[in-house]
């Protein structure tokens, strides 16, 4: 047979990378993440930190400095796995990032974290930066969480920024129910001179009309 049979021998693991169970692992791993010139080592360190929730804040902080995409991806995955309050806050701090790819990655990650993101997204709706409020709404759109619709209706009633309101319209079009139609129409009434608002609201109302409350 031309196909070779060689016994599977595990290639020796990267011995610099301590396993999470070893004492002092958090510090060592964070140090590797922060200082190693090797992207492979930084990536391995980021992945090994998944069992160590204490690392969430520092991991998230490193995301902004990290140049290698595969290391950034590992950091985000590990933060999703940690799924703590600190992880959610650390990710949400990148709503203001200049880099669109980072913002998208963060929105997707917060959606994957799920219900735990909801209360913190609600807090972010009070931010003074409309962009940050819009990203919080984008996350909420992907959450199957009871409070979300109520928060979105609140945005429709009160948020001074039309674009933030439109993000909420779009979100409700995805996850809203028939009972949200009144709040949608009331939002359109706040901006009577903006034809696009009327258009978006009509579309959203059609979408939610068939969605009966559970």
């Amino acid at each position, binding site marked *: 047979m*031309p*196909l070779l049979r060689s016994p599977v021998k*595990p290639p020796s693991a990267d011995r610099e990378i301590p396993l999470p169970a070893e004492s002092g692992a958090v510090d060592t791993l964070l140090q590797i993440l922060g200082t190693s010139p090797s992207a492979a080592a930084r990536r391995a360190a980021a*992945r090994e930190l998944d069992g160590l929730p204490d690392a969430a804040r520092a991991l998230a902080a490193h995301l902004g400095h990290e140049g290698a995409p*595969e290391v*950034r*991806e590992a950091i985000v995955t590990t933060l*999703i796995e940690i*799924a703590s309050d600190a992880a959610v806050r650390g990710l949400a701090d990148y709503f203001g990032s200049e880099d669109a790819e980072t913002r998208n990655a963060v929105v997707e990650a917060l959606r994957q974290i799920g219900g735990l993101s909801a209360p913190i997204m609600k807090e972010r709706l009070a931010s003074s930066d409309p962009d940050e409020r819009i990203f919080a709404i984008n996350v909420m759109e992907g959450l199957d969480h009871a409070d979300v619709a109520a928060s979105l209706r609140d945005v429709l009633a009160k948020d001074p920024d039309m674009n933030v309101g439109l993000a909420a319209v779009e979100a409700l079009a995805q996850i809203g129910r028939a009972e949200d139609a009144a709040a949608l129409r009331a939002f359109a009434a706040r901006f009577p001179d903006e034809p696009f608002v009327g258009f978006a609201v009509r579309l959203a109302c059609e979408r939610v009309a068939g969605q009966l409350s559970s």
Partner: protein
Amino acid sequence: MSDVRHTSRLNGVSEAGRSDAGGLTISEKEFERFQDFFYRKTGIIFGEAKRYFVDRRLNERFLATGHETPTSYLQFLKFDDTRGQELQHLINVMTVNETYFYREEYQFRCLVKSLLPEIVAARPPKDKRPIRIWSLPCATGEEPYSLAIYMLENYPDVDRLDIDIVGSDIDTQVLAKAQAGLYDDRSVQYLSDAVRARYFKTSGAGQWQIIDDLRSSIDFLPVNINDRREMRHHTNAFDIIFCRNLLIYFDDLSRRQAAEAMFDALRPGGFVCLGHSESMSRISSLFGVRKFPDAFVYQKPRS
């Protein structure tokens, strides 16, 4: 792993008792607790549509282990099954192992026409390591044997290269079958008579067994793609991974974890072939997409 992020809305199942099928009725809460536990171990998500299937399989395990309530069985799994033997039984009954020879053949064509030539060309001459191909998951073995047969039939260079094929699955029962290499008519239906004659011996009506030479040329070993400890042994170890018809059983998070795991298992420039219509969450940030004449394939960057 983090908790399950789906909620199932089920109707009509309530307090413990006997169900129509004769087994124990599993309440919605019990089902959710079980799903959560199983998801953490395997990455597999069932969803409502599979409820009947899951209930039947669970009942087989209640009976086999003598547990009288779903809760006591789950307690046993969590706290008393220290060597994971019952978990393995459970995994073996819960997985869907459907597969056959030459499934999605166009990807094998892509392998011999595009992937292998590129891997060979990109290697420094001093690199004498075998080219390693991983069928993960391999189920009952049709896929890794197909890889071998297809290369032997269609890739002339196979004679001067060292190629190493490994088949892995989370289900140990299918691995035993893969090792035995015994198949029925349905499984081999897309193979030509010539191929059947060359690589199989018949053993009774409708029974086909892979010839010994081929059987012994493939390594089978159990692997859970979402188990970091297991996957760590395969860091930087493969040139090509066939990961077909697995991600469909996963949710977004376990798909993402599988993508991370495959990235680490591949050598630089290595390829991942997914089943048709499968995708990995966030794949584009880890892998490049390559469009070859026969298939789309994902590639780990070279540097």
